[in-house]
């Protein structure tokens, strides 16, 4: 099995902006807590950079959530749709 090209790699989606907003954290504060540059937080949020497993675990520990609650292969369902009832959705 050959290596996948960079373009063929599937994107990794994340909920970092939502989680950061819920906790009223700036990028700088989150970056200092995780031990990265604040630009890296921004690039993660924008999807310009996919984190290493180590960084993903550090983020998961910081937010006290499993990794799959922060990162996913498919786009996350918006919170507004998650909280609406089936009747409202119709």
């Amino acid at each position: 099995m050959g290596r996948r090209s960079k373009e063929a790699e599937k994107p990794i989606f994340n909920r970092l902006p939502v989680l950061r907003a819920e906790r009223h954290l700036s990028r700088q504060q989150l970056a200092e807590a995780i031990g990265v540059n604040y630009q890296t937080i921004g690039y993660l949020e924008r999807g310009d950079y996919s984190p290493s497993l180590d960084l993903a675990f550090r983020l998961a520990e910081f937010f006290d959530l499993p990794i799959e609650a922060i990162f996913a292969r498919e786009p996350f369902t918006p919170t507004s749709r998650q909280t609406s009832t089936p009747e409202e959705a119709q």
Partner: protein
Amino acid sequence: MSTMAAPTPATAPHERPEVTWRDAATPLSRASRRRWTGCYVVLLMLLAAGIVDDALAVSGDGDGDGDGDIPLIMFIAVPVVFGMLRRGTRRITALDHPELDERDIHARTSAYRIAFPLLALVVLAGLGLLAAFGLEESKRSTRIDAQTTLTEAIFVIHPWALIGLGLWIALWAAFLPTGTLAWREPDALELELTADGGGLGEAIRDAVLGVALAAGLAISLLAEMDAAALLFVAALALVGALGRRAAGQPAMSRQRKWRVAIGLTLLMAFVAIAIVSSSGGG
């Protein structure tokens, strides 16, 4: 599970750092960095043209006729443009390992990896230039004659040509990793980007600096005067002054406005006097 508790909500906004003309001139968007990367390559090619022309010496032939001399503006523009790119990439290639996080290290590694074969091309191109243009200079020396072949002549090349080639390759070696980063790094984050205000946009700033640089080079080459370099410096100062407003600086006090206005007036007067005196003397 968690060993790191979430900190308390932010209470105070981050203070913006003091913004200088260097910050204001630093390209933050990838598009702007790509423009200046191209500009730097052109500057280096012009530098090579200046080196291979006439006496094959960086300092020119010293006879004062301007032939083969490299305008002073080149020696100002090369570090300025390189410094802009360096700051635009947060000097990732220059920082020590502990100051870089995993993304920075990955970016730096890939930049060096891409820069290496490019440098090999530059070295080969430099050797080709040396063989092509250095031969003429070598023929002027008494050691070889017109029957000397190119292969033979390259071994008796003028020492100045070798020094010039070494300097040229060293400039490329320093620039290529930073240039690769400047070309590949994504746009800077919103926090770094200038807030919307009354200042110049990045495209306009690039245009102002680019026009000043091109005009300075053209004037230097045509009129053989180095006062054109001051035009470029004046444009940098102007972009810096306007960029400070765009960077979200608090409004200047009346006293400070006067100081800035007097400084700019003096600078422009200095440029005008230098131009007039150069044109009168030449």
